[in-house]
């Protein structure tokens, strides 16, 4: 029962956030139909198509993990690890300082 009550509150909170996002999109005129691509963009697309045909750009089917592109996953992990390490280091330093200050005050 408590779980259901909390779930309702969470769904409401999420709905409010999504609703505000929708309002924002509406206010900035972002919900309208997509704009037609510019001539430059069409030219670029044509160039990409040619590159795909020539084999310069490789396209793979999109039905699973692309194990060849693990670099992408590794980069994400590296960013997360670096940020987590920074926060943990700051937390350890802060705690040590706090402890030292307490020890000094006691002495």
């Amino acid at each position, binding site marked *: 029962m408590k779980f259901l009550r909390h779930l309702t509150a969470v769904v409401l909170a999420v709905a409010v956030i999504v609703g505000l996002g929708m309002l924002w999109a509406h206010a900035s005129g*972002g*919900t309208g139909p997509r704009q037609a691509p510019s001539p430059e963009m069409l030219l670029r697309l044509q160039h990409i198509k040619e590159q795909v045909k020539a084999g310069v750009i490789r396209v793979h089917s999109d039905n699973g993990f692309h194990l060849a592109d693990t670099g992408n996953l590794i980069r994400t992990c590296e960013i*997360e690890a670096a940020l987590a390490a920074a926060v943990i280091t700051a937390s350890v330093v802060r705690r040590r300082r706090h402890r030292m200050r307490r020890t000094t005050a006691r002495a």
Partner: protein
Amino acid sequence: MRGAATLRHDWLMNAGSTTPAADSPVTAGRRRILARTRLDFWLDALLLVAYTLAYSLGFTGIATHEWLGIGLGVVLLVHLTLHWDWVIRTTRKLLRPGGRERFVWLVNLLLLLSMTLCIASGILISEVALPQLGITPPASSFWRQMHGTTATLTLILVPIHAALDWRWIVGVARRFAAWRPGRSR
């Protein structure tokens, strides 16, 4: 959304009400603590791994990326529901002095906003998952931009959110390492 100390308090408060008669209150309490801790730990780990995979679009491909994102949304709802007590308690305490709790609350609020908007915008620009279900979302450049921005913001906030509770994570991991099935601890 979790305050390690508050959760520890929750586990102790929850212990003992529906335990088998054969167990002593202490043992039963420990068993219940472990069940909730296990759920929190694995759900949080699942969220972290799922987000890391979902962000690595080049690794997963668009179809897996979209289905992962939708699944992430469901697990996020459960995660928030499990920690709603913490949200209410910390929000009430916001006016009191004490920097760390306020900082954690702010990080969590930002993460809630960015992750919700990231998943919602992802659904609105879906190219594979929703069309597979026969739904064609009204994609727009606004939601595409929103998805990119909130995904990057979430990538920054997720490790900060996890690292703020690193003591809890290390503590639970240690307990898992020492824990053997069949023993209460």
